């Protein structure tokens, strides 16, 4: 960056832990969450939801509801048939995929408990909810499809016309792709003279559980229809709403105001959004809908829910030769915006940081009578990381090797970058040795191993385990070219504008749409350095399609890597644009100018013009050079050529009470290499939160359906989001190998903690319990499950819940 070259280190914004600009309104309650907004005359919606998971709708009687006090209208699916089409699936894996039509209000059948069957419009939220109770729906029950293995085999079917529940069967094979050897041959070879591990792991169903329930407000009373939504993806919402409701796109303005968390859960276009928009448009009145928490847990998409059947082949010396991954992925009843592709986001990551000769990945996406699954923090990559990190630990046990040594034997060494993996992707940079060395030191790895041995020897009821996760992830969604080859409907570029205001302050308009990540602060730091303006003089605008017309929003650890690169490019253009004007004003040749500290200087002199002076001159345009437009504003789009690959080494010391099954995290060290860092404080916060969500998968959270397909973890009483009392302080540190994919050298950090921590915890629990014969515990590793696993191992007569959830054959038929 131009200005940084001669500036003392301390004046740089990038790299500083700047306190956040966003905080002031959030800590004082002056927030603009969607449910806080009020438009005069607005009406409210109440959703009638099916309590049954699979049924034909035989009749709906809305007469009583319509007559209830305050009720304006009641709509069923057929009532809205001419007004709104099905919800979008933006990422079928092939044109042959079976993608069921998902109408915002069910028309003839319901396919999960919680599906909307009628909508009440009323003058108050209370009246709307009261009247939902008066809608009388008759259902004719159909067989419920829940079990993943049984669903894969079928019948019964969720959508009987297809005579299958398999939506797609997608395969990557290194031999076929020419990126590696033949998996079958390598596994056969290992069966003769090496080691073959076969495992089945279950990735339980999780719920994103953002703290702000989703809320939508649509005001159709102006020339444009204004659509406020608690969404991560305002730009997607605009396009898809236009398509589904046959509304001209330019007549829709989407605003994502303050958004209270997303974690992938708000990377969706939802029935409730289409309904709110459609009803508002139909009635010509402002309409608001805010879901309850139970509605959110029941009706918003879930995450994970895969069964992984894995075969790993290795030599007796511990060199992994092949990995075969065979997945069943539970899509639920319908396809989400990117739902079918979630397993594919992990497909290229099972080989992780390792050099395998052969690799094969296959997945069947399965339809069931549950709410759909889609992105949840990490999206495909946590599942992949869990699988391979568990396998590496198991292989170390098999070979009686230290698990870190085994990993080092297989990982890509620092000298080998850039490295093209067996999955066909080039990792640009990384240093697994450095991250691991730092983590070991911070953790006191050797000391804890000694303590572990000592506790084992004296049969301490509290056993100590060391959990390891040396993860990597594929971030920075994404090169459009690659997304296209994977059949994604959209691109992966990002867009930004930098506007120089006449008095010298700056507006930065970005297509990314933050919901807690602190972009306003970080982007201000970047622009301050680039343009030589004060941090305080930068305003970051986002989340409103009228202001930020172009963008592809925030998810997949993409905003800094892709979005901020667009910001830098736009800022570069501002400088380029200003240069001839500065030359004109200074009566100097452009070649004699240098840009430094927000000024164009005539080289070797103290004569210069600031950007602010030039911006003001543009306002007047009195003495403006001919043939140049009178403004400095610039826009740029950026489409990365490659992904970025953050990585790190996480170590967890886990204490397991073998008498009660209670699990305690004694210490947790996370050393992450996320490339260059803009704001270390924000990065640390992302890691803390990410770790906690990953740990929650290992220990606490699970969406549970009963045998009828009713979500029994349908409130925060039953769905265990961890509290402060359930969590610990983490030790976080970083190593740094800059990414080559972008000017900043950044790799992305949003998902790292979540991807890394789940296997670290489960590996730690198992490491503590292996001497007792425990080899597997299904997640979440609740005290009950841990206790049963210990008892089961003690007494092999007692069947243990720790055994794989599905029998291997039936599961993958």
């Amino acid at each position, binding site marked *: 960056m131009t200005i940084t070259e001669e500036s003392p280190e301390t004046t740089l914004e990038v790299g500083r832990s700047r*306190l*956040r600009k*966003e*905080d*002031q*309104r*959030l*800590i*004082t*309650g*002056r*927030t603009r*969450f969607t*449910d*806080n907004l*009020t438009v005069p005359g607005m009406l409210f919606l109440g959703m009638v939801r099916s309590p049954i998971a699979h049924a034909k709708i035989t009749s709906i009687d809305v007469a009583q509801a319509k007559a209830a006090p305050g009720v304006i209208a009641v709509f069923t699916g057929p009532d809205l048939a001419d007004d709104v089409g099905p919800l979008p699936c933006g990422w079928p894996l092939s044109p042959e995929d079976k993608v069921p039509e998902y109408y915002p209000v069910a028309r003839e059948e319901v396919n999960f408990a919680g599906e909307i069957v009628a909508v009440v419009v009323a003058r108050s939220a*209370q009246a709307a909810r009261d009247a939902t109770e008066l809608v009388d729906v008759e259902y004719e029950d159909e067989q419920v499809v829940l079990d993943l293995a049984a669903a894969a085999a079928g019948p019964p079917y969720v959508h009987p016309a297809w005579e299958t529940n398999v939506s797609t069967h997608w395969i990557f094979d290194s031999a076929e792709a020419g990126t590696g050897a033949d998996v079958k041959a390598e596994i056969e070879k290992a069966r003769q003279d090496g080691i073959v591990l076969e495992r089945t792991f279950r990735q339980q169903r999780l719920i994103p*559980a*953002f*703290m*702000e*329930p989703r809320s939508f407000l649509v005001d159709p009373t102006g020339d444009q229809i204004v659509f406020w939504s608690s969404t991560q993806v305002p730009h997607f919402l605009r396009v898809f709403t236009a398509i589904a409701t046959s509304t001209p796109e330019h007549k829709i303005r989407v605003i994502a105001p*303050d*958004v*209270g*968390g997303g*974690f992938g859960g708000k990377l969706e276009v939802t029935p409730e959004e289409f309904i709110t928009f459609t009803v508002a448009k139909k009635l010509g009145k402002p309409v608001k809908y805010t879901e*309850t*928490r*139970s509605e959110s847990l029941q009706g918003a998409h879930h995450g994970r829910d895969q069964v992984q059947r894995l075969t790993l082949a290795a030599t007796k010396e511990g060199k992994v030769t092949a990995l075969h991954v065979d997945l069943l992925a539970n899509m639920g009843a319908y396809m989400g915006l990117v739902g079918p592709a979630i397993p594919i986001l992990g497909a290229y990551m099972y080989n992780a940081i390792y050099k395998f000769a052969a690799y094969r990945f296959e997945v069947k996406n399965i339809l069931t009578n549950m709410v759909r699954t889609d992105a949840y923090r990490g999206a495909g990559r946590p599942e992949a990381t869990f699988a391979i990190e568990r396998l590496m630990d198991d292989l170390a046990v098999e070979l009686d090797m230290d698990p870190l040594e085994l990993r080092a034997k297989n990982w890509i060494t620092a000298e080998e970058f850039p490295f093209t993996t067996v999955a066909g992707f080039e990792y640009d940079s990384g240093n697994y040795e450095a991250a691991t060395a730092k983590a070991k030191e911070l953790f006191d790895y050797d000391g804890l191993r000694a303590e572990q041995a000592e506790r084992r020897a004296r049969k301490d009821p509290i056993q100590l385990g060391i959990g390891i996760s040396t993860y990597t992830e594929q971030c920075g969604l994404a090169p459009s070219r690659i997304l296209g080859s994977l059949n994604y409907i959209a691109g992966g570029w990002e867009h930004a504008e930098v506007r120089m205001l006449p008095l010298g302050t700056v507006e930065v308009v970005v297509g990314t749409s933050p*919901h*807690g*990540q*602190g972009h306003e602060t970080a982007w201000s730091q970047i622009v301050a350095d680039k343009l030589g303006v004060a941090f305080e003089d930068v305003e970051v605008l986002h989340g409103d399609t009228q202001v930020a017309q172009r963008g592809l929003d925030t998810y997949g650890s993409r905003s800094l890597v892709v979005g901020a690169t667009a910001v830098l490019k736009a800022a570069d253009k501002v400088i380029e644009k200003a240069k001839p004007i500065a030359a004109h004003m200074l009566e100097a040749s452009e070649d004699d100018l240098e840009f430094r500290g927000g000024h164009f200087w005539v080289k070797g002199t103290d004569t210069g013009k600031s950007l602010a002076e030039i911006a003001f001159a543009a306002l007047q345009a009195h003495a403006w050079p001919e043939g140049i437009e009178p403004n400095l504003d610039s826009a740029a789009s950026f489409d990365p050529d490659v992904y970025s690959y953050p990585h790190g080494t996480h170590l967890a010391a886990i204490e397991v009470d073998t008498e009660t099954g209670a699990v305690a995290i004694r210490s947790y060290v996370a050393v992450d290499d996320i490339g260059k860092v803009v704001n270390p*404080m*924000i990065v*640390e*916060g992302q890691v*803390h*939160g*990410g*770790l*906690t*969500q990953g740990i929650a998968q290992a220990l606490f959270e699970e969406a549970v359906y009963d045998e009828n397909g009713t979500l029994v973890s349908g*409130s*925060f*009483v039953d769905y265990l*989001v961890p*509290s*402060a*009392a359930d*969590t610990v*302080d*983490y030790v976080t540190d970083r190593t740094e190998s800059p990414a080559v994919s972008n000017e900043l050298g950044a790799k992305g950090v949003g998902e790292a*903690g979540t991807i890394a921590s789940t296997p670290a915890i489960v590996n730690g629990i198992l490491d503590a319990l292996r001497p007792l014969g425990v080899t597997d515990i299904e997640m979440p590793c609740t005290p009950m499950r841990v206790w049963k696993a210990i008892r089961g191992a003690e007494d092999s007569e007692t069947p243990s819940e720790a055994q794989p959830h599905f029998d291997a054959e039936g599961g993958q038929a």
Partner: protein
Amino acid sequence: MRISVAVDGVTYTDDVEPRTLLVHYLRYVLGKTGTLVGCDTTNCGSCTVHLNGLSVKSCTVLAVQADGGEVTTIEGMASNGELHPVQQAFHENHALQCGFCTPGMIMQAAALLNENPDPSDREIREGLEGNLCRCTGYQNIVKAVRQAAGNVR
């Protein structure tokens, strides 16, 4: 029913339905939208306010129960342009990300420090157990409360 409640130093008199929750009264009658609703089951704590000096989850208090009482919300915490020490500490320690749990978390933290001006980390964690945050992993929240404890004293 007619109630009279002092909220953030201003006394309001309103007719409310008996079933009206205090949080709905604050948000939709008084327009005090700083206090948020995150669940239906008194688990998340986003709606925490002080009623007569004690922290309550305002989704679990009827507006009529606050009749004659004094309520402080997040909007009444700063005084004379000065942030409350807990607000300041949340800012300085990056104890918030999306900010949705923050008003409730700050109100609960302030109540905790009223009861226990010098809590241990364990006491802070247990004192905040009824307030869920999905973003921060709590580490910086605990740090903020620890710092605020020093400043409040």
